[in-house]
């Protein structure tokens, strides 16, 4: 996305406007809330009081980042129609939520959970399991945050034609994000997500319309062209691609649903009704988000044939340039759209950062370093450590990795290993902490090793999924051999659905 000819000063104006709007929203969401900074659930979970609109948009804007556009369109360009899988793997996440969110919501509200670790700790009462899952989740979040930081810089410097250099772009937007997050916590994050989500939604639709206009308005023509020039991209996928598709459904479905920031949105819901309604709407979002981005990538094959891997990563920028040249209307819409991409990246980054800080303050500091600290102090520690983490990640981000998708898979490999403990633990009383610990550790090591040694997939199956298989096997086998003996009546009560009603 380098050297966009269409923007410069105009891009800077739109970006500044977006930044100011975000700051204003952050300021107002924190104002008058005296308890916000004195309570963990107030700051990190918006007082467990997010209504439908805020909850839906924060789920949406967090799940779909700027990368969904900037990274997925090139993937569609390179792989062709089999990238239609991006609709299904984003949809299946809701199916996985249905496995655990209904019960988790009730328990979390009853027991005042702030982070996903609170549940793991409550369920297994094992320091080893708690520490290992904190490590895996922080690793996943850190990587995810890093990816967003890299993307912010690329998007902004691309949009302003290099007028704002990469480093300055990152620093300015990270500062804006830190400022509104500091002022309003989750409430600010969710309210800015409303604005960021709307811009992203409209942007994608206009971008597709512009792309269709450039190719003469007929998508069938595009497909015919692709079939003629690169028949592999429209052909029925070979078996290995299908296996990979299924593996992707598992990896993304299981991984994305237990992202700490995703779990915290379950905790933040005002009521079960609000949560249900938000998920029900979210289930319809993949076709109009990743589905449309997929079409953009396919149109790109006709507009810019023959790009190599590095070249195709610039696809969205290249297309935006062409679309902006159509007429002044499209010109301005494209600038707003690019601002929207930046906003979408920020909206994901802010949620990840908030979740990262909450785990540092509630889990690391609050459980292991200073359990007696006041909530106000824990919140402060989280805020400050979050800033330190950002500075550290920025330092890494100055050398951005090649393509976005590679790191996207990497973060799931480890994070997904928390899944058995998290979900199996909700329903299976015999599941023991020891089995969970060894399963998680073995799964993470196997997944990490496979990835590091270049076996990212075997016969199309992701290393993370193979590790997860081993993990499940150890969890279930170990618990059958030496079942957990639960003495906790509290836990017993939580795990019996009939008692779920408070």
């Amino acid at each position, binding site marked *: 996305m380098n050297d966009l000819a269409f923007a410069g000063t105009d891009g800077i104006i739109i970006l500044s406007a977006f930044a100011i709007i975000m700051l204003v929203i952050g300021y107002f969401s924190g104002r008058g809330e005296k308890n916000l900074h004195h309570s963990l659930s107030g700051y990190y979970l918006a007082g467990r009081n997010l209504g439908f609109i805020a909850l839906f948009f924060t789920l949406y804007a967090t799940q779909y980042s700027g990368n969904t556009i900037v990274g997925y369109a090139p993937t569609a360009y390179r792989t062709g129609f089999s990238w239609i899988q991006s609709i*299904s793997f984003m949809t299946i996440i809701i199916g996985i939520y249905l496995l655990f969110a209904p019960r988790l919501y009730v328990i979390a509200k009853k027991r005042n959970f702030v982070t996903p670790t609170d549940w793991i700790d409550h369920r297994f009462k094992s320091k080893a399991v708690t520490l290992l899952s904190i490590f895996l989740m922080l690793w996943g979040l850190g990587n995810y945050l890093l990816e967003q930081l890299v993307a912010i810089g690329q998007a902004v410097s691309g949009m302003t034609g290099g007028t704002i250099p990469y480093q300055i772009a990152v620093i300015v937007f990270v500062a804006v994000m830190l400022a509104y997050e500091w002022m309003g916590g989750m409430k600010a994050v969710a309210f800015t997500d409303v604005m960021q989500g709307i811009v992203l939604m409209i942007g994608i639709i206009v971008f597709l319309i512009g792309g269709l206009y450039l190719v003469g308005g007929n998508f069938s023509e*595009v497909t015919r062209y692709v079939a003629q020039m690169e028949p592999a991209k429209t052909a029925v996928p070979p078996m290995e691609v299908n296996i990979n598709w299924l593996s992707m459904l598992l990896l993304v479905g299981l991984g994305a649903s237990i992202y700490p920031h995703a779990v915290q949105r379950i905790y933040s819901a005002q009521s079960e009704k609000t949560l249900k309604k938000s998920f029900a709407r979210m289930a319809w979002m993949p*076709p109009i988000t990743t589905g449309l981005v997929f079409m953009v990538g396919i149109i790109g094959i006709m507009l810019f044939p023959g790009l190599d891997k590095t070249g195709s990563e610039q696809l969205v920028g290249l297309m935006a340039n062409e679309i902006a040249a159509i007429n002044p209307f499209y010109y301005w819409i494209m600038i707003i759209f690019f601002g929207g991409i930046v906003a979408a990246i920020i909206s994901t980054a802010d949620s990840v950062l908030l979740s990262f800080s909450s785990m540092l303050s509630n889990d690391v500091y609050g459980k292991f370093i200073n359990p007696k600290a006041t909530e106000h102090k824990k919140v402060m520690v989280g805020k400050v450590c979050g800033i330190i983490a950002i500075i550290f990640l920025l330092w890494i981000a100055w050398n951005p990795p090649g393509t976005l998708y590679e790191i996207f898979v990497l973060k799931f490999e480890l994070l997904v290993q928390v899944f058995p403990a998290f979900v199996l633990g909700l329903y299976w009383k015999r599941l023991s902490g020891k089995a969970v610990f060894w399963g998680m550790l073995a799964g993470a090591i196997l997944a990490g090793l496979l990835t590091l040694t270049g076996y990212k997939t075997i016969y199309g199956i992701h290393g993370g999924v193979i590790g997860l298989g081993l993990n499940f096997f150890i969890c279930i086998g170990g618990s059958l051999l030496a079942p957990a003996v639960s003495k906790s009546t509290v836990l017993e009560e939580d795990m019996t659905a009939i008692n779920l*009603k408070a």
Partner: protein
Amino acid sequence: MENRTIKEPIRKKWIWIVLAIITLGVVPWYFPDAAAEPYILGFPLWAFISTAFSIIMCGYLSWLCVNEWNIVEDQEEAERAKEDKA
């Protein structure tokens, strides 16, 4: 609070069987090579059917959220109604 009002998706097997069937429809493993044509709305036949299954999945999951999930809603809404009155 009688028990029969509680609906929890994990406890109904059919929910997961239907989801598995839809998923098997989404992944295009069952097409012969000839299914690249004809084009429907610009999509190769296999991609069109796979997308149709994806959209069925969206509808199904959305429907499940609203209709097969009810644990504390009645209680919460009753409490809220009381608070609103007070």
